[in-house]
């Protein structure tokens, strides 16, 4: 079973942006063009996350994505401001294969995980966790690392799994956008704790960082953003490097 290499597009409509340390946003391109580009490079999946919609209580604008979602024959995970089962339905209708939920579930209504898993199947429900490191633990943050939740990351991850999440996308508030390596202990703690697949994001500064987190934490997937956006490496480069290091990747 190969590890999934996932291209992650953070969206502030109508652009793909790159949050730096969850603070400033840089525009990096157009969603459909980048989706097509990473598809052609061999991405195993695409993740579209509208990272401002939740903060500004705006409905997500995904007309851009709808145009390409059905043309590219790989799975799409879509998220941003998902608050209800209706939101899930809407996103599946425009081409999502999985829906990513974060703020609403952790801050207000965790029950949405149960309800959506029962209707759409747990494989379609991805819970995104933004972890902020404290001395001996991690706390769940939301809205791009701006808002605290008071919830412990490991407790919440387990609760999300028990409620029916089919996958966890774990991000690190501290490591994101710094290109300085993953929070290895965080990634490992989550993977070891859970029985569902874990996708790790935040911190890839180079190929060695990717190899390191795969070997140390053994996640099911790895989500890459800036490395791809700034053309430091292509997905072919990443897969070729991992293959050379005896890590199984898809063709």
């Amino acid at each position: 079973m190969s590890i999934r290499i996932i291209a992650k597009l953070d969206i502030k409509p109508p652009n793909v942006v790159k949050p730096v340390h969850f603070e400033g946003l840089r525009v990096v391109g157009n969603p459909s063009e980048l989706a097509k580009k990473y598809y052609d490079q061999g991405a195993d999946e695409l993740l579209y996350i509208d990272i401002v919609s939740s903060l500004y209580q705006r409905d997500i604008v995904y007309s851009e994505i709808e145009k390409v979602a059905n043309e590219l024959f790989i799975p799409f995970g879509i998220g941003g401001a998902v608050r209800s089962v209706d939101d899930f339905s809407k996103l599946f209708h425009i081409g999502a294969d999985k829906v990513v939920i974060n703020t609403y579930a952790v801050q207000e209504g965790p029950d949405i995980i149960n309800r959506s898993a029962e209707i759409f199947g747990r494989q379609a429900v991805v819970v995104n966790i933004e972890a902020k490191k404290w001395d001996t633990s991690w706390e769940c943050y939301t809205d791009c690392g701006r808002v605290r939740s008071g919830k412990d990351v490991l407790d919440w991850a387990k609760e999300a799994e028990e409620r029916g999440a089919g996958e966890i996308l774990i991000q690190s508030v501290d490591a994101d956008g710094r290109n300085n390596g993953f929070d290895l202990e965080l990634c490992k703690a989550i993977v070891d704790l859970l029985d569902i697949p874990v996708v790790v994001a935040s911190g890839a500064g180079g190929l060695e960082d990717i190899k390191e987190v795969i070997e140390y934490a053994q996640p099911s997937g790895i989500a890459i953003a800036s490395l791809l956006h700034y053309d430091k490496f292509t997905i072919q480069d990443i897969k070729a490097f991992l293959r050379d290091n005896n890590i199984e990747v898809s063709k």
Partner: protein
Amino acid sequence: MSDIIGIVDYGVAGNIHSIKKAVEKAGGKALIIDHLSHFDKVDKVILPGVGSFKDAMQKLENSNFIEPLKSTTKPILGICLGMQILSTLGFEYGETKGLGLIQAEVKPMLVSAKVPHVGYNTLETSRNSKLLKGLEGVEFYFMHSYEVVNYTDIVALTEYRGHFFVSAIQKNNLYGVQFHPEKSREAGVQLFKNFINL
């Protein structure tokens, strides 16, 4: 004149549009079946599925699609949950009767590894199948927590961390795949070509 491929839309949405695009890319004509009368207009049927067994059966019933699916002699291709509900019984969120077209039960994957099984994996075909022609050893995208338990109609198995499960079945006019051909790049398009050319 080429066959018209009907894609059953019973309200679970999901991947219906990507299946339509993939069928068209494979050179087929696709028609979305969202009314009973549409079954007469198509030559072959694709039964997609995103969601849970119980919810899918309820929605098929609400759409009055159970009878036409049971009685048709046209080729049917069930995809993922669409293959699972061809079975007699499902155990997702309680016990639910399936279409009963294939003697099988649908149970949680019995594997000591992460479930759902998500990602690219290959097939090991156990008998010749026109549907899987040329696709042995090719990678397809899987995304499921339940598996079809069947012993008589297996066409392909897939290994996940030492556990072999049924990834493709065939019985008379019925075909089923546990993976998502519409999410499997060119390999999936090839599978739709094979289905069109059956």
